[in-house]
């Protein structure tokens, strides 16, 4: 029962995306030795924030891929007795609800890139039209749309936060307006990151981490069923190969949860770094921001290392 190389594909996607913001920041920094300290700090933040938004996107995709794999594993076992119902394979998060999350994560990503653009005082015309469209989309989300993302208690702050994020993506700002942008976005970014962390959840209690844990449990059980049901027709070598998959699956489950847990931490540190950036907007030196940014870069590197280790397997 071969497994799809999902995690490796995600790793490649993740590493490819990591190159973009690095180049972006390098060009911003190279273009302007005359950039203000805040503009330089903002460009550095943008690099890490862009990577963090991409990590979260990959986390959602990983859960969907493992959920799919669990359904396929179950199908392999039940096919002889129950056949195949072509409507039985479903996504974990239904498409409209996934779109809400995709737009929010893209909004975070584009906000980070916009900060880099504004820091470099990039001409207004060069700003991506799709970013404005995304901003409109975020502002158009109704409470009903967002019920898929936020609890009843959180729904109003979610609407407000996404309205603010959408607004900032539509407006065209200049570097002199940076302190105002950061201050205005302090709370919305904190809210969005907190809601995303809640959505990722906990291994035993709720959310993506719980679903990932259970999906791997299903895959491991089905793999054992596959071995027991077919061992009489397997060669010794084939049986060995199938048995060897079991500890690999256990390891993959642990790694996958670590990726989601690290992504949660990354989101928390992203919000903290953004807050520190806003609060030190008028300061020449900003040790508090440097500490927060350093933590965020550590998170980014840690996830990059996990993905790289998977890539080398």
């Amino acid at each position, binding site marked *: 029962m071969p497994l799809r190389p999902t995690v490796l594909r995600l790793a490649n996607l993740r590493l490819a995306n990591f190159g973009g913001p690095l180049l972006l920041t390098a060009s911003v920094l190279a273009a302007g030795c005359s950039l203000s300290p805040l503009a330089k700090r903002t460009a550095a933040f943008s690099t890490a924030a862009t990577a963090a938004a991409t990590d979260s996107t990959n986390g959602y995709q990983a859960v969907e891929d493992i959920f799919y794999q669990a359904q396929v594993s179950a199908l392999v076992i039940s096919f002889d007795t129950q056949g195949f119902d072509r409507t039985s394979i479903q996504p974990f998060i239904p498409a409209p609800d996934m779109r809400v999350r995709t737009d929010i994560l893209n909004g975070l990503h584009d906000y980070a890139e916009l900060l880099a653009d504004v820091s470099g005082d990039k001409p207004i015309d060069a700003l991506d039209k799709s970013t404005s469209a995304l901003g409109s989309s975020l502002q158009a989300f109704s409470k009903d749309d967002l019920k898929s993302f936020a609890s009843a208690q959180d729904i109003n702050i979610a609407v407000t936060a996404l309205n603010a994020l959408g607004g900032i993506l539509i407006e065209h700002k200049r570097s002199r307006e940076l302190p105002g942008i950061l201050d205005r976005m302090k709370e919305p970014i904190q809210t969005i990151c907190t809601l995303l962390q809640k959505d990722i959840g906990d291994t035993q209690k709720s*959310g993506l981490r719980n679903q990932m844990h259970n999906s791997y449990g299903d895959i491991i*059980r089905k793999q054992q069923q596959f071995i*027991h049901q077919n061992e009489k027709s397997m060669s010794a070598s084939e049986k060995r190969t199938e048995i060897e998959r079991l500890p690999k699956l256990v390891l993959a489950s642990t790694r996958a949860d670590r990726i989601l847990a690290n992504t949660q931490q990354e989101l928390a540190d992203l919000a903290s770094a953004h807050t520190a950036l806003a609060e030190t907007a008028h300061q020449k030196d900003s040790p508090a921001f440097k500490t927060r940014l350093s933590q965020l870069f550590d998170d980014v590197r840690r996830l990059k290392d996990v993905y790289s280790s998977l890539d080398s397997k």
Partner: protein
Amino acid sequence: MADDDSQQLAERSDQEKWQAAHDKLQTLLDDTNAAFDNARTDAQRNALDAIADETSTALTILNRQDIQSNTAALEAAEEPMQSSIDSLNHLKVELAAVAAGFAEAAAVVDGIEEAVDDVSSFFGL
């Protein structure tokens, strides 16, 4: 379930009820998977696998409902949840028949009853 337990359950917030139902099912799933790992016969494995399938499906429904925390999603989840509960009740009887001499499976039978009670209360089934 005792009357005072039912009263306490009714007084808890939806979120707490959701978490209690989820916890019960999660424990059942973990116990079932552990029992499955130790099963010795095809009959035991098949019965435990079927329970784990139903429990996992029920947890997915609950997780989706948490993610879609709204009334419409809750109503949409009722029917498949009822189906999972019916299957669990049926499987409990089936598993009891193969559980003789198999302590882990017997413990799972007890777990099913508790989990079904809590999940049924949450969905008002």
